[in-house]
């Protein structure tokens, strides 16, 4: 198996578990997937944060806003790995409720960066913004308080 395939085989299930839980109101799996060692950054659809304290706060806030995850999928557009660093470019499709409104599908384009720490892949960066020419993400973002 190529290194990039091993990388994807390792991180995609973790990513799926973490984001399904986050969108069901549980931030713990996502916090466990992330490194707590600087630098960690999120260029998120909702906010831009840097450093674990801010990142953790962001995940808690997101989890408190999301519920009722009906589906999450990350389609990989490109990926690469070298030593203990890997990245993937993806198309995320999620259906979940924000602020207890109706579950709404939304799509994001994402760049995720992972660093291997102690033999495990940990996420160190997430860059996410609405998939162009779709409205779902804008509807969801407007519901955040």
């Amino acid at each position, binding site marked *: 198996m190529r290194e990039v395939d091993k990388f994807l085989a390792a991180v995609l299930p973790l990513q799926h578990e973490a984001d399904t839980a986050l969108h069901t109101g549980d931030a713990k799996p996502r916090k466990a997937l992330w490194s707590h060692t600087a630098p960690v950054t999120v*260029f998120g659809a909702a906010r*831009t944060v840097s450093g674990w304290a801010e990142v953790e706060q962001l995940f808690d806030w997101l989890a408190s806003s999301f519920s009722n995850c009906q589906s999450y999928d990350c389609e990989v*557009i490109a990926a690469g790995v070298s030593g203990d660093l890997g990245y993937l470019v993806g198309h995320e499709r999620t259906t979940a409720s924000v602020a207890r409104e109706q579950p709404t599908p939304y799509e994001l*384009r994402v760049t995720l*960066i992972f660093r291997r720490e102690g033999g495990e892949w940990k996420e160190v960066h997430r860059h996410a*913004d*609405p998939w*162009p020419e779709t409205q779902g*993400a804008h509807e969801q973002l407007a519901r955040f308080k």
Partner: protein
Amino acid sequence: MLRAGATTDEPIEAGIRAIQQCHRAADEFARGAAGPVKALYSHADDVTLANPFGPPVVGWRNASAALDFASTRFRDGEVTGFDGLAKHLTKELACILEMEHWRAKVSGREEITPFDLRVTTVFRREGDAWKVVHRHADPISTSHPDGPLRSS
């Protein structure tokens, strides 16, 4: 591959040069010139570009076309600053996270508009050079014919 007598600092210096070249190329892009940015991009089939003008594109041909399109949307501009937020580096891959501060005439407008982009750039070593294999840039919104000024 290192030449005989080369030090292990050379890849790092080449990496720093690549980032500086990227910054200069972005500045030229704000004046409508796509050439310098395209010269820094890898020509591989797996390169990606996710800019404010449309969905992500894959492969050099598509990235080249997308860069040509985007460059026609900028005139008389400059990138006045780059804030480095984080770097992740290995021997073959570098991920650079920055805020770019732009001023330009966007999409045919007569006035100069300032805007900021959040940018994730991935470089890959190809031979002695670091080449861009991915750029994800957004002003925190979706694509629109006006690119980064979609809300105005």
